[in-house]
């Protein structure tokens, strides 16, 4: 795997392989020294055009646990604010020869676009409202870890589907893994055409009890200002997942950060059916697996053999056997 740009590029075997690799890293997290030398000498550049705390720190942690060097580049306070184009910024940063660039932008397709301008492996950490593939992978990992398999699983994704890159990646990933997906939310926030992804579309939660997993999306305050919904109060009345709506056998997920009292009631966030913290933990493991795949086991100019950080003898396929 040279890049990770879109879930569309991954088949079931590729997702399984990434999850298996993430599982193999799980043990590292339980060590006193949470580090393996798999990517020693490699540089990972975090290029973030949008604010992000958890995704960026999760990638940073993942890279560091694999002993890679990490450089964080935030667009605010940088040359980007002085009007530098994406191409110029990427080419300037690429001149420092990072082995991988983890990029988040507000623009669909931007991560794919920059593959033309650098030899580095590109990992899409969110491109506009298009995709957020590592989020979908960590969600699959979390479910697989909990349930063993996603085959035949019935997942409902509830909320602002229109503006959600998480939803687009997740629908594709869950279906690839054998799950059935329904997206539900107010008609102003669920484009009818989203069914082209292969999912069902519902505007009410009447049939929510049939779900095995309820995945709530973040409802942004801004959507209310744009009058997509009349009020957050009315949104909550119709779509909030609370202990009344969440059945005892249903699992609850959310990509974070949670708006308590809007898309989720506080008691279910902290309740026994919630996988939200498991998702966060899985985030680092899956991002370790992704970075490992694109840097240590793939082809192309960024493989260890051709990169400037080569020759340390640390490219073992089973990094968990080689603690630092």
């Amino acid at each position, binding site marked *: 795997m040279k890049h990770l740009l879109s879930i569309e590029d991954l088949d079931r075997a590729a997702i399984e392989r990434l999850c298996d690799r993430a599982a193999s890293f799980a043990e590292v997290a339980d060590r006193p020294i949470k580090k393996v030398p798999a990517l020693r000498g490699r540089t990972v550049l975090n290029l973030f055009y949008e604010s992000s705390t958890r995704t960026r720190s999760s990638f940073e942690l993942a890279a560091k646990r694999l002993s890679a060097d990490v450089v964080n580049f935030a667009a605010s306070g940088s040359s980007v604010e002085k009007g530098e*184009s994406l*191409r110029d910024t990427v080419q300037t940063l690429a001149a420092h020869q990072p082995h991988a660039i983890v990029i988040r932008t507000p*623009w*669909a397709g931007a991560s794919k*676009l920059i593959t033309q301008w650098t030899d580095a492996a590109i990992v899409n950490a969110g491109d506009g*409202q298009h995709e957020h593939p590592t989020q979908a992978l960590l969600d699959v990992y979390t479910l697989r870890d909990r349930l063993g398999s996603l085959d035949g699983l019935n997942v409902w994704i509830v909320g602002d589907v229109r503006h959600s890159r998480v939803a687009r990646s997740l629908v594709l990933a869950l279906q690839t893994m054998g799950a059935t997906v329904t997206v539900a939310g107010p008609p102003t926030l669920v484009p009818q055409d*989203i069914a082209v992804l292969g999912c069902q579309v519902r505007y009410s939660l009447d049939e929510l009890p049939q779900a095995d997993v309820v995945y709530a999306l973040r409802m942004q305050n801004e959507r209310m200002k744009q009058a997509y919904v009349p009020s957050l109060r009315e949104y909550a009345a119709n779509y909030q997942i609370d202990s009344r709506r969440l059945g005892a056998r249903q699992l609850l997920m959310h990509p974070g950060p949670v708006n308590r009292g809007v898309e989720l009631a506080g008691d279910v966030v902290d309740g026994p059916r919630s996988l939200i913290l498991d998702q966060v933990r899985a985030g680092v493991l899956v991002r370790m697996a992704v970075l490992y795949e694109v840097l240590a086991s793939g082809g192309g100019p960024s493989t260890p053999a051709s990169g400037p950080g080569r020759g340390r003898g640390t490219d073992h396929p089973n990094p968990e056997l080689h603690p630092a």
Partner: protein
Amino acid sequence: MSLDPLVRAPAQDADVLLRRVHVLDPRAGIDAPHDVLVRAGQVAEIGAPGTLEAPAGTEEVDGEGKHLFPGFVDPHVHLRTPGQEHKEDLETGTRSAAAGGYCAVVAMPNTSPVVDSSSLLGSLRDLASRLARIPVGFTAAITLGLEGQHLTEMAELRQAGAVGFTDDGRPVTDAGVLRKALQYQRLCGGVIALHEEDPALSAGGSMREGSVSARLGIAGVPWLSESTMVARDAAIAGYEDGRLHFQHLSCVASVDALRDAKARGFKVSGEASPHHLCLTHEAVRDLDTSMKMNPPLGFEEDRQALIEGVRDGTIETIATDHAPHARDEKEMPFEQAPMGTTGLESAFAAVYSELVRPGVLPLDIVVDRLIGGAALMGLPTPTVAVGERANLCLVDLERAWTVGEHGYESKSGNCCFHGRRFHGRVLMTLADGVVAYRERSFAVHAA
């Protein structure tokens, strides 16, 4: 109107004998092989194939197997002057048009500054009289600064040579303003051309709202953003008995609204672009920014409705909306990139290859629609007739070529057909009696 609406740089009148060319001039009812002699820029004689002699000093062109059409007229191009000459200027834009077989083009006023005063229009025409390879007509804005509020000095602009009026690139959102412009048109004449889009419905969109935009997560423009405005403004035109032209139509409902308005006897007309006739929103899947234009590419049923509109004459002209942008401006994430595609050099080949060769539209209709823009703009329609200035384009329909293979005459290469293999190569263009373009491999034989 006191001034000739079309302006070009001085150039030498042509003396050319086109031998054994298949002349197709649908409006003159000619569709047969002929010899055509051009002397001092005028069509001097049309004779049976192989019968005319070339007078001394006349260039002789072997037209065997080639077609000769009246030069095309594009009522909708962006020449980017003044203010954005890094994208295009009057010389490169008209050279690009000549390479596409055009003998006249009409430039849009959404420049920087906007063409909304007679002094600016005058200086533009002056510039064109030194730089334009083919005759150019200029439109002026309907409203000051394209802001949709105050009418420009339309009467004075007409006297200064404005072909007509348009806020192209933006709609006239306020129906009251459009109504006043149509009332004022009774005084000054000049077609009013409209870019139809309801910003309340289109705001934030970068492509057509539909299955592809849903998959890509890109905010979409619903087609009704255009068609509701076409319906509204056709009604206003009918009420005021004014003359309106609808630019770059892109959806079924707009074509229906135009057809209905015509059936009611309203003085309305419409155009379709080669890209809306040949491509759909599926072309946006890879986020190639050359596929980003306004209005955006539509659905297959929209494409079919536009083709039907061209066929039955509801849509009288094919117009390119030639919209050049510099490479670094288009080398952006899709949502950030400016809208527009170039089109002058590929228009005929695209429509011929995609619609005529497969048998979707007959050649004579396509040629008719490529010259049809002239009458809509109040300009003389080019025709192959003795005594007329030579406005001709010589085309090899069998010649296959790749769009952009030798670069472009335009300053910009943001062509949505870039890299496509087409048939139909323009070999030579005569515009107002002057040889304005000659294809690079096209041999010259002086008599």
